């Protein structure tokens, strides 16, 4: 089950730097591990995370197998206007999760 959690303030002053924490539920299988029978477990990771603020991209991360399971990504952005902040995780085997949050800017 694809699931993600995003934490950010519901409202902010204009120009304020807000902190955003995101957590996606994903095993991040590295592709280097083997089963007890010696077979390689195929890679299954989230490859890309993108954060868009009212449609404009503000932050993007390319992830590699060295990122731990259930990847946590914490970053900041400037609260410019009221609207929605969208988060998207894209990965192997057609994994794609989108989460949105709304923010009120005064």
């Amino acid at each position, binding site marked *: 089950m694809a699931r993600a959690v995003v934490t950010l303030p519901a409202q902010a002053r204009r120009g304020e730097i807000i902190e955003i924490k995101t957590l996606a539920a994903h095993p991040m299988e*590295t592709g280097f591990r083997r089963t007890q029978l010696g077979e390689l477990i195929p890679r299954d990771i989230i490859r890309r995370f993108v954060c868009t603020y009212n449609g404009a991209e503000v932050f993007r991360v390319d992830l590699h197998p060295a990122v731990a399971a259930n990847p946590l990504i914490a970053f900041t*952005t400037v609260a410019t206007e009221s609207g929605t902040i969208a988060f998207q995780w894209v990965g192997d085997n057609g994994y794609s999760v989108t989460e949105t949050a709304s923010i009120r800017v005064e």
Partner: protein
Amino acid sequence: MTTRREFLVLACGAASITAATTAKAQIDPNQQALRKAAMQDALRRVVGDAPVRRGRVKLQLPPLIDNGNSVPLSVAVESPMTAADHVRAIHVFTEKNPLPDVVSVTLGPRAGRAGLSTRVRLADTQTVLAVAQLSDGSFWSDSADVVVTLSACLEEGLI
């Protein structure tokens, strides 16, 4: 004349020192050299021939890690983050993981502060390198040494 008691104290001390030095996760030297070369390749792919200077970047990792499967890592870059002067990208590399890349971040002035916190896997006691590319095209870096007692990816033939 050494008494039995003195002998035992010395012997136990020596044994525990040996145990402490081998407690670090270790990969074999040939593989270490290959992986170091892989990291240099990955770094060159990002920076090209441009010089990488130390400073402005702050990479934070705990110095001693019990379990390499989930290690908190944070990178912060000193920058005003204005349209004229901001950080364009941050890359994190490891020296001894099976793959040198960890994360690559693309950001701009709208990020407010140039930084990121995440959790990573570390296969061995090693040096982690963070490189930031600024809007003027210059590269800055910081590295952190970490001691890993229990490695991630033990299945890879690591002891």
